[in-house]
């Protein structure tokens, strides 16, 4: 059933990674992504991977979870690597009919695969160890300086909060509407593509109607509780950073510089 899908999966825990300030975790994740794309050499990439491994081990999460998070992107990985293997010019190693596998192709696609996997693992580590609510707060606080240039940081965060709040409600509702239409003889999983698309109308229209109604009622309820935009708002919980957050940030910066240095040092070789 739809209800069983967990969105923004978060696995509560008490590890160092869980306890890090979410703002720092966001920054560190960004630094990790820079590492991945800044390194053009295998040694550089290895350093980035070592960094991830340390963080992953510190989080105490099971490797199975990481493998599971890979599942949805397997097709993407396969497609990009195939394209890279066959279409990048270089010294041919093997040729089948019109297609040639070149050394450059192999190398680039190898890089691509590692980067993609590491990217997904890195961001999964962030969402697995940070509750979506805290993450939203962190995003709001990081973006807050941008509100000076009229960037709607608070509004964005409020939208994310409400979206998180209503995802389970709307999934449940979708389930209910689907059952109700099935009870009236709707066929949702058979027929041609157009037939199936048509069969979705009786689900989508009620869902939209109810979402609008919910939005209207929620807006009213928020106004009744004195909601007046982000100005002058205080928070029940504020994110606090301490020594360990700065330490973690320093470590990640250290790794980033290492990646950069190795890249510069080995660039001639590659």
């Amino acid at each position, binding site marked *: 059933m739809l209800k069983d899908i967990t969105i923004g999966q978060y696995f509560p825990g008490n590890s160092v990674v869980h306890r890090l300030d979410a703002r720092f975790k966001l920054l560190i994740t960004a630094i990790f992504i820079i590492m991945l794309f800044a390194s053009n050499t295998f040694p550089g990439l290895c350093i980035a991977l070592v960094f991830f491994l340390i963080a992953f081990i510190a989080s105490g999460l099971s490797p199975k979870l990481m493998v599971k998070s890979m599942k949805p992107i397997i097709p993407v990985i396969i497609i990009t690597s195939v394209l890279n293997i066959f279409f990048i010019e270089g010294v041919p190693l093997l040729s089948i009919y019109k297609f040639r596998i070149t050394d450059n192709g192999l190398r680039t696609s190898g890089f691509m695969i590692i980067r993609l996997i590491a990217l997904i693992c890195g961001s999964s580590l962030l969402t697995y160890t940070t509750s979506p609510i805290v993450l939203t707060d962190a995003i709001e606080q990081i973006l807050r300086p941008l509100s000076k240039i009229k960037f709607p940081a608070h509004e964005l965060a409020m939208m994310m909060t409400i979206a998180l709040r209503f995802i389970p409600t709307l999934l449940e509702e979708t389930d209910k509407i689907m059952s109700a239409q099935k009870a009236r003889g709707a066929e949702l999983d058979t027929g041609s593509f157009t037939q199936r698309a048509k069969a979705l109308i*009786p689900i989508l229209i009620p869902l939209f*109607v109810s979402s609008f109604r919910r939005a209207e009622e929620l807006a009213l309820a928020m106004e009744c509780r004195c909601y007046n935009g982000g100005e002058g708002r205080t928070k029940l919980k504020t994110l606090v950073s301490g020594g360990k957050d700065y330490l973690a940030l320093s470590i990640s910066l250290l790794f980033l510089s290492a990646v950069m240095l190795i890249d510069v040092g080995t660039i001639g070789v590659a």
Partner: protein
Amino acid sequence: MIRTEKLTYTYSQGTPFEKTAVNNVDLHIEEGAFVGIIGHTGSGKSTLIQHLNGLIKPTSGKVFIDGEDIHGKNVKLRDVRFKVGLVFQYPEYQIFEETVAKDIAYGPSNMGLSKEEVDTRVKEAASIVGLPDDLLERSPFELSGGQKRRVAIAGVMAMRPKVLILDEPTAGLDPKGREVILGQISEYHRRSHSTVLLVSHSMEDVALYAEKILVMNKGEVFCYDTPPNVFTKADEIAAIGLSVPQVTKVFGLLRQKGIDIRSDVYTVDFAVKTIREYLEQKGRVS
């Protein structure tokens, strides 16, 4: 008409959230009966009714409609759903068509009936729930809450199911609205001779309309009997956390006070009659 055999359903089997919603239910509901289903939230009544038209597949056990195993080899579930119409709670939220008539026609059209037949059925169903003809071409979204509810109920009635199941059709309505809808359902039952299952939280409503009452508790059938027989167990029903009609409570209190009076009183008229009889017996009638 409806028979279940050791029907069991377990949610999220194999996970820490595992919960048996319906447990080993053997049920036999006669053709043409008007059955009230009572039970509190989590008693399994909603899960049970979704088994009866195949929306939920039992974890174990069987469901027979008209003697036919609905998960049997040559049975199409879609046909079962036309035979067993199910009106969900707050059914007005499933309305989607541009006009009332089209929305009511959705079910019958899915059955593959001719246009004329669909039209006849739409008109018939609309009249049962008291929707005037001039509303049929209006957008259902313009109607009042109570009218929308009736459009949705008509949408299922128009399939002319042999069994009509309604999950709390009166939820959120005011007393007048409740009375009107229950009256229409009762009229539909009388005219169509179909089997009607009415899920409700209100003992008062069920007591007034149903010929038989099915009380569910913790995924099991607590009792399935005629209203007078069910209400003789008023104390036990109260003990599993269900509220009995206020008059039933009053008679319970009287018996607690030492008055030897019958306990199966559940309607006002019957209460008056019982009081009169009691006084006559004592030779103290005024």
